[in-house]
């Protein structure tokens, strides 16, 4: 019998010259990032722009920490969307469930790398974290829940959710058949297996939602509970972290979904309805986050604490004003685009992608403003004002991380269907 139907869905297993060139380029940039890290390990933190707070007039947390917060934030939306699809039965969003799960896993891996970049002695840091992590510290929750529990939960969810498609793909003979068989692990798509999967993923989703709210809140507490650091100490930090995480993650998900839609031949697999949902969700989250920003700004301006006002002054009219107002502008323009799309009641993928990119740039700016100014301008002791300028090592590390993330996602899309397989798509 002729093996006519050996093509796997969504371009899985088919590698074009263009894809190879893209993958090689991404790999080169990722390796350049690791080269930067090797400089840091071999020569010490002196190759970075990081210096002690106070006497050395610097910041001990730089752009690596900015991107830890950013990547953990991006991971939030992925698994939230996947869990909500299951819990709220949002069938319209089903096509993006897999890419959302993959985005979460990749973002958490990138966040873990960014933490390693920030540590002068990564190995010592990891061992001591396991040995001495203090339950009283928000770091305990952040690193135990986010990097371990959250990553494991996302991997388990991604794996179990993909078994049905893996079994479907394993029917097609080819180089990847062994991989799909391994993933399927004997899954035969019987009614009993489907029911079992529905039950398991329902409870998994129920367990994941509180975990991710807790995990993201503890990341906010890392900053929000520091009484002696003006600019950080705020009850709004934790909820604002969760909201901005949702904004940046949804923005990134829109961009990825649009890229996938361009690559699949049949656009009915990723209909306009998906983008409408994502656009509406992003608009609501963005509105809520902008409200938080206004409340935070007004509270800090009216506060009696002098140092608090100093830091806020730096944000709105000082050294950091260009980042602050650029971020605000990007948020406002994104909101405008989303409202235009909402009023027109169309998918307007182009507008959504622009909004998605803008909110991510703005989120990076806001994360920078959360991490840096309070260290350089927020000391309560009578030190001179500090400064922080990242070096090429830090820049290349971060650029390398983005390339590594894109490489992981593109590799995943070549190994496994990036969207759920419909009946008849495989084999």
């Amino acid at each position: 019998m002729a093996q006519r139907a050996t093509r796997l869905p969504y371009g899985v297993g088919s590698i074009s010259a263009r894809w190879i060139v893209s993958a090689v380029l991404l790999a080169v940039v990722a390796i350049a990032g690791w080269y930067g890290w090797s400089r840091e390990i071999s020569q010490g933190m002196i190759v970075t722009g990081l210096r002690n707070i106070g006497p050395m007039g610097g910041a001990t947390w730089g752009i690596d920490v900015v991107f830890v917060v950013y990547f953990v934030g991006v991971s939030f939306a992925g698994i939230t969307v996947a869990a909500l699809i299951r819990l709220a039965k949002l069938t319209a969003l089903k096509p993006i469930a897999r890419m959302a799960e993959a985005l979460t896993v990749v973002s958490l891996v990138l966040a873990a790398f960014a933490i390693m970049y920030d540590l002068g002695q990564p190995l010592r840091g990891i061992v001591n974290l396991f040995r001495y992590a203090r339950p009283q510290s928000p770091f305990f929750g952040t690193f135990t829940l986010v990097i371990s529990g959250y990553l494991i939960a996302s991997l388990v969810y991604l794996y179990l959710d993909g078994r049905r498609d893996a079994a479907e793909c394993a029917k097609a003979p080819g180089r990847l058949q062994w991989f799909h068989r391994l993933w399927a692990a004997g899954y035969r798509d019987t009614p009993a297996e489907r029911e079992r999967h529905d039950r398991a993923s329902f409870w998994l989703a129920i367990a994941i939602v509180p975990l991710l709210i807790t995990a993201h809140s503890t990341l906010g507490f890392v900053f929000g509970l520091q009484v002696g650091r003006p600019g950080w100490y705020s009850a709004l930090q934790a909820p604002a972290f969760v909201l901005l995480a949702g904004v940046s993650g949804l923005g990134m998900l829109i961009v990825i979904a649009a890229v996938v839609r361009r690559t699949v031949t049949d656009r009915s697999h990723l209909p306009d309805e998906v983008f409408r949902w994502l656009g509406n969700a992003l608009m609501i989250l963005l509105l809520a986050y902008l409200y938080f920003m206004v409340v935070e700004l007004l509270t800090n301006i009216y506060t009696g604490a002098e140092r608090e006002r100093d830091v806020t002054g730096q944000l709105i009219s000082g050294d950091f004003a260009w980042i602050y107002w650029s971020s605000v502008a990007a948020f406002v323009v994104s909101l405008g685009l989303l409202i235009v799309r909402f009023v027109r009641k169309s998918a307007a993928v182009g507008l959504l992608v622009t909004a998605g990119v803008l909110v991510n740039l703005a989120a990076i700016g806001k994360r920078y403003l959360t991490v840096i100014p309070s260290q350089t301008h927020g000391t309560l002791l009578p030190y001179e004002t500090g400064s922080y300028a990242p070096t090429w090592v830090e820049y290349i590390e971060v650029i390398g991380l983005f390339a590594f993330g894109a490489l992981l996602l593109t590799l995943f899309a070549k190994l496994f269907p990036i969207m759920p397989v419909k009946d008849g798509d495989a084999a």
Partner: protein
Amino acid sequence: MTRKVLALGMVVAGFALQAVAYLFLATPIGKPTDVSFSNPRVPFAPVLFILGVVLVFLAALVYELLPDRRASRSGNEEG
């Protein structure tokens, strides 16, 4: 049935391990009087907490992957 019991057992054990590791092994008990209160009471207690979290989620894998004895038996009979 065994599969369900095992998965449920893992969930319960995972939550119990988290509670014990966090409240009794990691959190210093009493009024902080010296520097030792900065560390967990038992070194590596955070690892146990992480294992507890991981155990809960791995229960889902056990629940789905472990073959159903009754189903496989009836499958064999049919075969």
